[in-house]
């Protein structure tokens, strides 16, 4: 394909021509991000709960898990999972491997957020619940969880945004997400600069959009806090 003088117009043609491929990439990016974040949050919540309520011995094991995952690069974790996995019988396609990688990578960060949130629940409220003879489960559901959720929203949003950017790393283990598709397109058309520039701007917009949604959500939960405390 001949490069023409009008780079912009040419780029526009490219994006139309490669539209379906880019959409697939976008779909995979969003899929990996949403499932990865949801899975990481769930796993992180369980880790935090066990660390908060569980026996001391398990606490040390989980602390070690958190430190190891937080102390090693996500890329190396992916390599261990995707290239090392088959040697211990774990064979995964790129997309599931990528999602599992995000879940494992994100879980310690989410766990720490929930742990801090659990510690921030005023103990007097739990005691008051016990004094009123509420069942432990009800105390958890009606007192601890609502307070925890409200105080954890900002850091949870924050880390989920960081996870959006980590999805780009999945392209290295051949997950066909946005960056991978754009690189494939560039290799075929040699339009590296325009494509990568457009991709950077796209990610920038995506991250700003998610931040905006997070802030709106925060305002909502804050309003909830105020209503709760004034009643």
């Amino acid at each position, binding site marked *: 394909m001949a490069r023409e003088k009008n780079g912009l117009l040419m780029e526009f043609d490219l994006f139309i021509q490669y539209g379906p491929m880019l959409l697939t990439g976008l779909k995979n990016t969003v899929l990996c991000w949403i499932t990865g974040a949801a899975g990481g949050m769930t796993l992180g919540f369980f880790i935090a709960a066990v660390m908060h309520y569980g026996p001391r011995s398990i606490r040390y094991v989980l602390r070690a898990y958190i*430190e*190891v995952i*937080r*102390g*090693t*690069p*996500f*890329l*190396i*974790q992916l*390599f*261990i999972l995707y*290239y*090392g*996995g088959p*040697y*211990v019988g774990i064979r995964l396609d790129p997309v599931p491997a990528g999602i599992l990688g995000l879940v494992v990578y994100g879980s310690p960060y989410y766990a720490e957020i929930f742990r801090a949130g659990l510690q921030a629940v005023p103990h007097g409220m739990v005691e008051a619940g016990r004094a009123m003879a509420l069942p432990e489960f009800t105390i958890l559901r009606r007192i601890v969880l609502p307070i925890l959720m409200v105080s954890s929203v900002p850091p949870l949003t924050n880390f989920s945004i960081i996870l959006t*950017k*980590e*999805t*780009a*790393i999945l*392209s*290295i283990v051949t997950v066909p997400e946005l*960056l991978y598709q754009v*690189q494939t397109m560039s290799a075929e058309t040699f339009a*590296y*600069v325009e494509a*990568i*520039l457009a*991709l*950077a701007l796209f*990610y*920038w917009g995506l*991250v*700003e959009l998610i931040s905006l949604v997070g802030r709106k959500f925060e305002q909502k939960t804050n309003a909830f806090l105020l209503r709760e405390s004034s009643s």
Partner: protein
Amino acid sequence: MFSWSAIFENLPYLLEATRFTLIVSVFGMVLGLLFGMIVCAWRLSSSRFLRNFSALYVSFFRGVPLLVQLLLAYYFLPFIGINLPALPTAIGTIGLCAAAYIAEILRGALMAVPRGQEEAAVAIGMTPATIWRRILIPQALKISMPSLFNELILLVKVSSLVSVVGIVELTRMSQSLAAATFRPLEIYLAAAAIYLVINLALAALGQWLEKRMAY
């Protein structure tokens, strides 16, 4: 079968390549601190243009994946006629990106320095430059010490991404060795262990410094 010998035989190569991991992250951190101070000063400057520009700068570098930033530097710089070798390009990109985070860290720390100190410094006739050099910057650095060490640990981890653009640091070396030895599991686990040791050492150093600086 897990092979320990695969790890021991290749450890020298891995450690050799670790040098570049450290070079990229340490130099990236130094650049990040320098640029970060400048961007932070812009964020707090009286000129509206500089304030807006630095806000945009922070938003861009925090909103785009570092991997995309690295690729952008690789393709875009030659496109506009700037031809740099791979290592400086990678370190420069990481430095620019770290600057966005460090600027925000420093901004928060500066706000934590008690206002009265600046007023006292003005009252005894210090010039603005001296106030920055002797009062504000040292204290901001002290307050932000934990966050800055966090950032350094983060940089050690993201330095693995420069493997993508062909710099033979720890991750790139482990990729080559994994391909050559057909022992990906052992080699990558060894690489992970090296990263972990570096980061645990950095975390310990950070805590020790914090204790020493506390008074």
